[in-house]
């Protein structure tokens, strides 16, 4: 705030919100986040890297993912092939870069669907309560009794293989765990007095949900989504590893590690290393980012 009484020339040490304006504020918040939670920022960096790889794969990857060069089979990492080649002479680095596409699309698609479903179930269950709540909680309990991979495999066995199937199956699975957390957040919000006041004034249920419950639940949703993404990527790579993921030849990190490739790994161990590193880095990124977001946004949820 400029002091109108004394006008002095501005010293360079004066704090003035100059031309960066809005961007400066976001930038400062980002820098604060990086300093406070370096691990989370590192995770965020990995996540950003993955998204960039997925979006700009065509530009970044030096070779096409299916470009076979049988004269260069099973080559160790070199200047021409940064991560080496596989048994069909395909460049592993390019395949890893394109594999990010699958992970990002199935990951975000799956968690998006899961969070949508979970919010629907969780918010209605928590807000309306009653027999609806009891029924849905029993359903979620029963659903969580199935081992995740088992139910995924069973769902996939009744659907056509492909990316939409993966998204739907993984989405349904991740919804069950998340719905409980969203339900408790909705329950907690419902107890507030302003909700009671809104009911008294005659606000409809829909209005209360959209206007009051959703904004409070939103933080929880962000945290669940970020941490859930790590789990979803692991699930997708596990399915691809078993051969139930995206059909070849499109590369998926899990599929690159699968049993059919293992025969060649004894001669070419780099085939075994890079896709796994990619998966671990991606999952690490999302987990750390989610942890940091949770600590920053809602300390009540702090687990460890």
């Amino acid at each position, binding site marked *: 705030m400029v002091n109108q009484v004394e006008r002095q020339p501005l010293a360079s040490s004066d704090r003035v919100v100059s031309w960066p304006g809005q961007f400066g504020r976001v930038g400062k918040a980002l820098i604060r986040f990086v300093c406070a939670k370096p691990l989370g920022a590192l995770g965020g960096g990995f996540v950003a890297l993955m998204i960039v790889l997925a979006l700009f794969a065509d530009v970044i990857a030096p070779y096409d993912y299916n470009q076979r060069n049988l004269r260069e089979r099973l080559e160790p990492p070199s200047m021409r092939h940064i991560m080496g080649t596989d048994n069909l002479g395909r460049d592993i680095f390019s395949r890893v870069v394109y594999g990010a596409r699958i992970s990002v699309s199935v990951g975000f698609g799956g968690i998006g669907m899961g969070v949508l479903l979970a919010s629907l179930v969780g918010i209605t269950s928590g807000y309306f309560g009653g027999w609806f709540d009891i029924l849905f909680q029993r359903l979620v309990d029963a659903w969580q009794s*199935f081992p995740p991979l088992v139910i995924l495999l069973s769902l*996939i066995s009744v659907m056509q293989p492909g990316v939409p199937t993966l998204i739907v199956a993984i989405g349904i699975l991740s919804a069950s765990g998340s719905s409980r957390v969203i339900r408790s957040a909705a329950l907690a919000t419902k107890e507030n007095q302003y909700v009671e006041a809104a009911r008294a004034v005659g606000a409809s249920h829909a209005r209360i949900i959209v206007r009051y419950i959703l904004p409070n639940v939103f933080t929880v949703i962000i945290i669940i989504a970020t941490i859930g993404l790590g789990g979803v990527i692991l699930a997708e790579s596990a399915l691809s590893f078993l051969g139930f993921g995206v059909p070849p030849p499109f590369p998926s990190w899990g599929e690159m590690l699968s049993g059919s490739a293992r025969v060649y790994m004894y001669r070419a161990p780099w085939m075994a290393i890079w896709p796994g590193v990619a998966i671990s880095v991606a999952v690490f990124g999302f987990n750390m980012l989610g942890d940091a977001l949770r600590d920053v946004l809602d300390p009540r949820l702090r687990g460890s």
Partner: protein
Amino acid sequence: MRNYVLKRLLLLFPSLFIVSFIVFSLARLIPGDVVDMMFEDQAYAKDIEEMRRKLGIDKAIHLQYVNWIAQVVQGDFGVSLWTKKPVHEEILERLPVSLELGAMTIGCALLMAIPIGILAAVRQDTVQDYTARSLAIGGLSIPSFWLATLVVVLPSIWWEWTPPIQYVAFGDDPWSHLGQFLLPALILGFASAASVMRLLRAQMLEVLRQDYVRTAWSKGLRERVVILKHALKNAIIPVVTIIGLQVANVAGGTVIMEQIFGLPGMGRFLIEAVIQRDYPVIQGVNLTLATIVIGMNLCTDLAYAYLDPRIRYS
């Protein structure tokens, strides 16, 4: 306590009922007919109608469900479309292997998680703490199948040693029978141990700040007594609940481990059944695993009540 146990036991039935409903609808989700799909993939029966009658899908859906439940309760899970043997026989053959792997995994997970969790909490912000937390992060992020693949591939390159791939039954050679479970149990346990360790560390940190712990210190009790007898008993309570959740994850993980290490368990059976679209088997395995998980959750709930007197008397 009795009320709590009774309530928990009563809750079993709706859970099992809903589980059976989910398993039943799984095979019915296919647009079109199971039989049309089977007929397209592999010709199982010369006559589609005969197949329909055999599977019982020519009747109305609620009648199908009732029939199916009646059969299941008597232990008849149907006949495998692929091996032509009764499903419950196949499952009983393979169940012990999976149970053994699961039990060893949880054992390994607890053996890893509890000491490291306590150590990390007691020696907070030291090198040991940071190492433990890094290990936990690794356990959460590193896919178990990758770790298993590396463990199978790398030693064969470095030291020319591979884990045994041929399955050895208990009767033949007890030690190598147990030994072949050790590696997959350790790898799978590592992943579960990560979540347990993190939660235990957080709980221990909270409990160690409590007044009663401070009283114990000031009484001059030895460190081991304070930590193990007073702090751990209180800190372990929420951890027991998480262990119950991990059972389902472990059951899923055994699918991958059995595939990689060649153990003839239910997980591998399920994968083969999914490839073959062998629906009676898929249903049977799902039902069995879900029932086991529900049973284990009941046990952890009861253990929770035993450990926390506040629950018993509420």
